[in-house]
């Protein structure tokens, strides 16, 4: 261990797991430090990563700070992500796509509620891939954007319409078991 300040290590770790740019203000709250001190540390980390020629660099982009890969690694990265193996959705993306497909039109908030975690990052990926799209606005107070699956989604899945999606009834065995139990053991027995 060097005498590198611990805050640099913690900043690096937090930015590592963040799935979108983190505003300086959020980091200030997290570390209970004034924003200008956080900014100093971030600049320190940025220089350090650049000076040491690391594969990970720190970028100050719209909306905050995020870690990214070093530009000269791009050729390897493209080959790496182009591999067949990576041609599948992450578990989180698959789950989010499934929720959108079966519960559309659905808002970000509703997706997050079902999954128990924020799904903004994966939703953005699905939007950028063109399989999910905005389909309207919630008429309620928040006017939340509502999402649905696209025509491209249907084509890729080999479906003519959403009604051809397999029924969920058979796949949720527990609900069925409960219903059977209810009807088998009616009141009064």
């Amino acid at each position, binding site marked *: 261990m060097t005498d590198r300040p611990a805050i640099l290590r913690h900043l690096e770790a937090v930015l590592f797991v963040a*799935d979108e740019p983190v505003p300086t203000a959020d980091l200030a709250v997290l570390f209970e430090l004034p924003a200008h001190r956080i900014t100093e540390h971030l600049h320190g980390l940025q220089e350090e990563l650049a000076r040491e020629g690391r594969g990970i660099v720190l970028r100050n982009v719209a909306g905050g700070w995020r870690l990214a890969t070093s530009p000269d690694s791009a050729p390897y990265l493209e080959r790496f992500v182009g591999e067949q193996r990576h041609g*599948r959705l*992450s578990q989180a993306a698959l789950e989010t796509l499934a929720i959108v497909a*079966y519960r559309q039109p659905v808002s970000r908030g509703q997706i997050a509620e079902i999954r128990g975690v924020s799904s903004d990052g994966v939703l953005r990926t699905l939007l950028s891939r063109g399989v999910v799209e905005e389909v309207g606005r919630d008429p309620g107070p928040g006017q939340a954007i509502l999402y649905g699956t696209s025509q491209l*989604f249907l084509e*890729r*899945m080999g479906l003519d319409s959403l009604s051809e999606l397999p029924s969920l009834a058979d796949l*949720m065995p527990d609900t069925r078991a409960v219903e059977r139990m209810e009807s088998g053991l009616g009141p009064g*027995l």
Partner: protein
Amino acid sequence: MTYAVKLDVFEGPLDLLLHLVSKERLNVADISISEVTDEYLRASAAMGEVDLETASGFLVLAATLLELKSLKLLPSRTTVDPELKLLLEERDRLLHRLVVYATFKTAASRLGSSLSENSGFHSRSAELPEELAPAAPDVLRNLTPEQLARAAARALTPPEPPKVDISHVTRVTVSLDEMVQRLKARLEREQLSSFRQLCSTARARIEVVTALLAILELFKSQSVELEQDQPFGEISVAWRQTAPEAS
């Protein structure tokens, strides 16, 4: 000596039995089946619903324990009659299950420690950077509608309900002892009935379970005779005029 147990801390009948028989100097003969059963019913009622599979697992276990207990209370026999042999085989099977279960319980606690030792390592779960997205192959290529449906079913099924601390809640609508008394009175009056009839006034599933256990108690004390013509058929319950003295 009877032994009081708090059932809500156990994961099921096997876990409970493992706990009971692992105690020094405690064996089946010391366990008050009715106390254990009452405790079980109280715990189930407090959880708001009876998991039928767990309940039936528990009933099978309670019945086996009753049998083992009667064996234990009998004066030692020298000859091996077939019934005794069956019972001993049953005991060996139960012992085997307990050993297997105990092994996995230890494995579970090892896994639990490994998981918490490694819980400080967080990996990145962020999606591919946008600039790299064009290089990635078509993500839907290998996805079938069935896989999508399975993912949806998984996501939309509510997760395991959190464990509820029930130490302060509900009393059971009727205890096993009360049910035994109630059924005794009714059978003395009616002489012959069926399990279905006896349960016809039950207001909750838990009462049906209690009634079944009460009938087993009465059967054990030879106060009733039971008959069932076929599996899942009507169970007739007959009051024995000459019930032996309660032991």
